[in-house]
Structures are given as C-alpha cells and as structure tokens.
C-alpha cells in the first residue's frame, strides 16, 4: 500500500492505495468519479482519457502512484457553473454522441488535441482520435464536432 496525494479537479485527495491500482480505478472506485469509463483492458479504446498535468492521458496506462503529486482533470470538471465547455457544446450540437460511453474520453482527447493544434484539418482530427474508439456514431459527427469545437474555442460563433 502507498499513500498518494493527487489533485483531482482542483481538489486535493490523499488516499492509501494498493500499488497495482490503475489511475482509472483510483478515479472511479476510490473517488467515485464514474464519468471516466473503462472500455477495454489493453489501452486501445480511449474511454478512460483524462488530463494529467496538461496532457491527455489514457488513465488505464498509468498507476495511481505514478500520478503522485499530479494535477488531474476529468470529464466532471469540464462544464463550469451551469455552462457547457465549448467541446461539450460542439459534441451536442453536432450529435457527436449516441450511447455516450466513449464520449467523456472523446471530449478529453479532443481537449488535448486542440491544445496542441487549435485549428486541425480533417486528417489531423482523424489522426488525433486514432486512439479513441466509438461504436455508435461512425465518427462522422465526432469529426464535425471537433471542427466545431475548434471554431468555438477560437471564438468564432
């Protein structure tokens, strides 16, 4: 067992965890933040994507102890004070979600993608989302949503 201190969504958490605990299980089971989903066990699907120290990270690819001292943002922190984040706004406007299971990971991956590239082309979006699987939308509206999110974030309405 190890004591981890992790800042999640602006709040400091101190917990004893088994060394083998994955960050995603720490978020879901220890903190009860079930918005981060687990869609596979081989780090392919991206449903568990969160932001760790400013980077989009699949939270099944790191142990909770590796996030010692880190700042973690999850989907629960994206909408603020009754206002959707521009990426969330874009996903709903473009009908970029159906069952919603991949959506938190898609949104967090999109945030990372747009941080690196605020005005991505279709090909750059497709490349950027290669690590995120969706079974419902065929990705057509997800690609549209990412383009729209980039527009919204750049301030164009």
């Amino acid at each position: 067992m190890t004591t981890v201190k992790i800042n999640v969504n602006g709040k400091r958490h101190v917990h004893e965890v088994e060394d083998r605990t994955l960050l995603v299980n720490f978020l879901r089971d220890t903190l009860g933040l079930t918005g981060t989903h687990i869609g596979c066990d081989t780090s392919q699907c991206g449903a568990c994507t969160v932001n760790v120290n400013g980077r989009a990270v699949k939270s099944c690819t790191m142990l909770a102890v590796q996030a010692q001292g880190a700042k973690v943002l999850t989907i629960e922190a994206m909408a603020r004070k009754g206002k959707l984040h521009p990426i969330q706004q874009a996903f709903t406007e473009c009908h970029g979600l159906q069952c919603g299971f991949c959506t938190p990971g898609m949104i967090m991956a999109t945030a990372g993608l747009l941080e690196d590239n605020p005005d991505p082309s279709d090909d750059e979006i497709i490349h950027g989302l290669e690590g995120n699987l969706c079974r419902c939308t065929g990705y057509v509206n997800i690609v549209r949503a990412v383009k729209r999110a980039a527009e919204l974030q750049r301030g164009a309405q």
Partner: protein
Amino acid sequence: MEHHLLEVDGMRVSRREDLRLMTGAGKYASDWNLPDQLHAFFLRADRAHAKIVSVNVERALKHPGVVRIYTGADAVGAGYTRPLTMLTFKGKDGMQVRQPERPVLAHGRVRCVGEPVAMVVAESALIAQDASELIEVEYEELPVVIDPEAALAPGAPQLHDNVPGNLPFEFEAGDAAATEAAFAKAAHVTRLKLAVTRVAPSPMEPRACLAAYDPRDERYTVHVHVQGVNMMRKQLAAYMNMPEDKIRVMARDVGGAFGQRSLGYPEYCMQMLAAKEIGRPVKWVSTRSEGFATDSHGRANYVKGELALDAAGNFLGLRVDWIADMGAYLTPTGPVSHLRNPSTCLTGVYRIPALYGRWRTVLTNTNPIAAYRGAGRPDVAYVIERLVTQAAVDTGVDAAELRRRNFIPPEAFPYKTPTGSTYENADLPGLLDKALKLGDWQGFAGRRSASGKAGKLRGIGISTVIENTGAGLFPKDQIEMHVAADGTVTAYTVCHSQGQGHETSFAMIIAETLGIAFDRVRVRQGDEDHPLIGNHAGGSRSTVGAGSACHVTAKKLIEEGKALAALELGVEPSQMAYANGAFRTAESKRSITLADLAKAKKFVVTAEGSFSSTFPNGCHIAEVEIDPATGVTQIASYITVDDCGRVINHAIVEGQMHGGVAQGAGQVFGEEVVYDRATGQLLTGSFADYYMPRAGLVGEISMEEHPTPSKVSPLGVKGMGESGCTASLPALTTAALDALRPLGVQHLDMPLTPSKVWSAIVAAKAGR
C-alpha cells in the same frame, strides 16, 4: 417534425440525454454500487472442447478475502441449465428444436474457450481474480470443430448428446419444386458461395452486473445493461425457473447494445444465486478480453446462393442453402434471427416468382451467436445483392438497370412474397432514380479514368434493399402517461435506449400530439415501479412500437381529459375541443388546462398498441479507390437514399445511418472473429487483434430521404436503426469487387483487408 437545440438547465443541447452523458453524469451498469457488496470473478475455460475431470478450489478458498466459490455442480444443483428458447415453431419435416443444455457454469464438459467454469466471490474484484489463479481444473481434451460445414460432416466431433450431427434445427421456406422448375427453364444461372463473417458486436461498454437479494420480499434486484427490462427479466426467470415477478431489473444508461445486450447471460444467474445464498450483493464487471470471448458474436452465416434469369434478364427463381453457425449453445435470439429474418426478406426488393431456402443451424466449439444489428437481414441482403450484381456482370447488363427491370413495381404493393410475408409499400424506381442522380452513376466512367491516371483502381457498388422491422416478442407496447400539477407530462416505457435517444424522440412525439412544448415532456425508461407490457429496443422497432404507443397514449390522454374537463364545465364531452394543452368549449370562453385537471386529481392514462412489421427500404451507392501497391481500400464516396417513412428527428436518423454504415464498413474491410481451426483458441481476443472502425474509415455520407409513410404506425414511421448495416455490406463489397474485376478478380469474401486485396491483385496479375 421540427427539432431545434433544446434548453435544459439553461444549456443548449440537441438531445435530452446529452447533458448527463457529456458531463460524466451518465450511469452505466458498472457505475452502480450497493453497500456491503462483494465482487465476482469468473474462471473461464482455456480450451475449446474438453471433459472437466475435476475442479479443485481448496487453495483458492483459503485465499484471504474469498467468501465462496461456485462451480458447475452448484449451477446444476440450482437447476440453471436451460436458457429460454424462441424457437417455438416447427422446422423442416416438422422438426422440433433440439435444445442443448447450458449450465450457467460449465459442468462435466467445456465446449468453447471462455465458458465460465467457476465463480469466485470475494471482498474485492482483485482478490477474486487472484484467488481464481489458485483453482486447479483438470481437463481431458476432446477433438475440436470450428468450421460449421465440417461440424455437419459425418464423423465430426459431437458437442451435445441430444444434438446428433451438431444440427439442432433445420428449417425451410418457399417452394422447392417450383424453384427447381424455374431453374430448369433459366437462360442463365448465377451461383455464389458467400461468407457473412463472424464479428464481435463490441458496444463500447463492457458487460457488468450487480445482483442483490432481499429476503423480506424474496426478490432479486439486478442492475444490468438491457435493451428492455422485460426481455431481460423473462430470460433470467426462464433460466432460473422462477416467476418473473421475483426479479427487478434496473438500468439507466446503456453504452451501446446492437442486439448483444438483449441476452440474459449465464453469469448473471450465478451472481443472483450467490447474492441470495451469501446475503450480500455481488458485482461483476467484465473485461473487454472476456467480452471478446463470451459476449455473443454476430452473423457467421455461410450461404450458397443461386439466381435464375431468363434471356431478357428477368429473375425466375432464387435458391439458398444456408448454414448458420450458432457456436457451442443456442442463444434465445440467434437461431430465430438467422432463420426468420432471411426467409421473410428472401425475395429482396425483386419480383421473383419462385423462392426456396434451406437453413441448417450448426453447433461448433465457438462462442454462441446472437442477434447483431440487422440480425440476419444484412446477411440475406448481402447474398441477394451480391447475386444480382454478379448476374449483371455475367449477362452484361448495367447493375442498376438489372435491378430496375426486376423491382417489385409500386402498384404491386402491398406485395405478398413467395415466402409468405407481405411488404407494405415502397417506391423502388423512385428511390433508384434519386440515388443514381445523387451518386452520379452516369459520371462514374470519368471518375474511374481519373483514378486510374493516379494509379488507383476505382469501383462503384450499389445495393437496393428492404427489411422487416417492428414486430416483437411481446404482443403489444404499453405507455403509461402522468400529468403533474405543473402540467409536466411524464411517459413511462419499457423500451430502453442504448444510444438511440428515446428520451428525446419519444418526447417530441408526445409534445407534438399534445401540442405542448417539448420541455414539458419527460420520458422514463425501464422504471420497475411502473411495470408495463412492451418490447425491448431491437429489430429497429422502438419508434414503430413504443413511439407509436406514445402517440396513441397522448391521444387517449386528450380524450380522457375532455371527459374530465366537460364534467368540470358542466357540458357534454363532445362539446369540448382540445388544443395546446387546454380544453375549451365552443360556446364559453372558459378553458381548463392539463395542469388544472392534474391539480384536481391524479391524472394518469395507460394505453397500448400492437404494431406489426414495417418495411424500410433504401438504395446505397458506394465508390472505393484501391491502391494496388498496398491493397488499401479507401471509401471515395457514399450516398444513401432511404425510405424510413416519416422522420421524427432527422439528426438521430442520420446518426443511426452513420453508425450502421460504419459497422457495415468495419465488417467489409476488417472485422472478423478468428478462431484457430486446430485448437479453437480465440485469436482476436482484444482491440489489439480485432479490427475496429476508427475515425476516417467512413467520411461524409450524402443522404436523401424518399419516404412512403407506413400505415402500420399512426405516425407513418418505419424502423431504420439497422438499415445502414443492411445496405452497406453489399454496396461496399460490390464496389471493391468492381474495382478489382478489370484485373480478373471475380470474388472475394469479406473482410477485404489490405493483405487479402493485395494478394488477390498479385495472384490475378500472375495468372495473366
């Protein structure tokens, strides 16, 4: 119906459910927890066919934190051995189904990799998993059969004592003699042997279940993903030999389903037993790897098809010899889907005087097959459309023209097919005209030549398809509707969305019928405090069934409201008029609102309807470009013209089409569940090995509608959730083959992976 962005809590969203799903507030099966819960882990068979000599759990039981371990003997002791069957009709020569037993934990023998052999219940999921590694299972290996044709052959390894020849059910449809006669006078016969490959439906949410038991009322509560609570409850009750009212099924958000999540899986029954015996809730969350091995697979149909034509290109007869691989056991939906749906639509969109099909279901040492988006409809459409395009090639007729020549003409509807179904309506020539224009069929030669100059092989493919939707397991669909004192209307349904957005589209139907604002309507799904008769969401039936019932119930609400309002105003109900949430008399200026009536007394209405199959139809045209140097295929364009009757929510319908086409494209270009033929080991056991469609596989899709409203539903709707899969399998495959045909490639089975395509190109070139 007009649909704008909706205001919910001051935020603009396009669907009611979006707000919670986008903010991490969705609640899926694995998100449920109960105080004092235990965790289960299933030890699974690591071989495909073996006698279980012994299962030794002694060491595992001593592992700290382990509460109890169950084995096949416990499953058999509890009597959990016979799953529900929907094969209640007779097959060929009066054959009754030979239903193999399937103890919820394997007992005596394992018949496929992944079959659960023991269940460890412990204080945590990790403890349960650790302990499972201490269980010693001694097996005695048996010969394995993976290929369904081989399983039917004499001398094949036999899976179940009560299923001789591995043939649990044989079925036929049509007229064998008439079809034989039609083929005898044919000027040309096209023959193909086709594989509609085994695929993994793979909704993004892994399976999960939390079972609890309350001894006070002797009832189970099961938190699990569903397509409808009724379907799940019925299966669990049947498997466990108990009355349905002993089980409460609880679900809110479901992370995709596609038919795979309609099943009452064996694991849930064991969890329920343990929850009762131990007296604590038992939770299990599947891994994706377990899912690939044990969540039902789809398709796996192997078909010899023949199409007979006269000298003028008129279809005379169609015959199929169909082998449906069922895996090691029969699921409730698998056999019935792969027999009934193909036989219902065996004539496709064509007037074919003589039809005959023979279906053999086969058991193999593989994971069981169940319904997967389309459930036999994409399979039969694929067979028919591949035959028609091949016949066009063989006889030198344009593929669109051959279709047009043989369409069921608009005036022939309602059309009774030779296999006994009745297609309601369609305008096939109109559909085709629109599609040929949208896809610029005439301009293809120019585009092919431009691609050729760039070193690419370009091909065009077309499909014109129809499918049956809408009818269900339960005889009717009920809706319960409450009016609150503030005028809010809440509708309860047992039809459960898995992403289709019922909370939005059903609310739109009710708001329109009642003439009230959308934000005054709420839809609740699968609330066990409001038990109702009704079907699950499957077979594209939600809007046709539950959606139509929403309309019918809203109408009844108005009629009952008129009677109540008339009483209040001292007039006859016939004098009352209703509009926009208020009742008025013609004479007086007084009015009474829905809210007023609900303030006076509880205002609840339940109504129902029985809605049979609708027949959505469509024409899809795909163009692909193949790079001969790599064998990589790109979808260059994809257009759809569909008749799904009246559209309630265009964004949702488009989204369903996108998803269906992408699933079809996935199957055509990469997806395939592969078992090692010698050992039965699963070779595609994770997303690392199994091809999944990714962003960019399908680009923009150009869509047009060509509705002929259905009279089955008062809304005029037809089911459309599966149309994308049904039409895309043949459209994309025929496009790729069209690109390869100039090189001499006539036939390839899906998946058309770069390796397969490249090898075919190389072989074709070498053959010249």
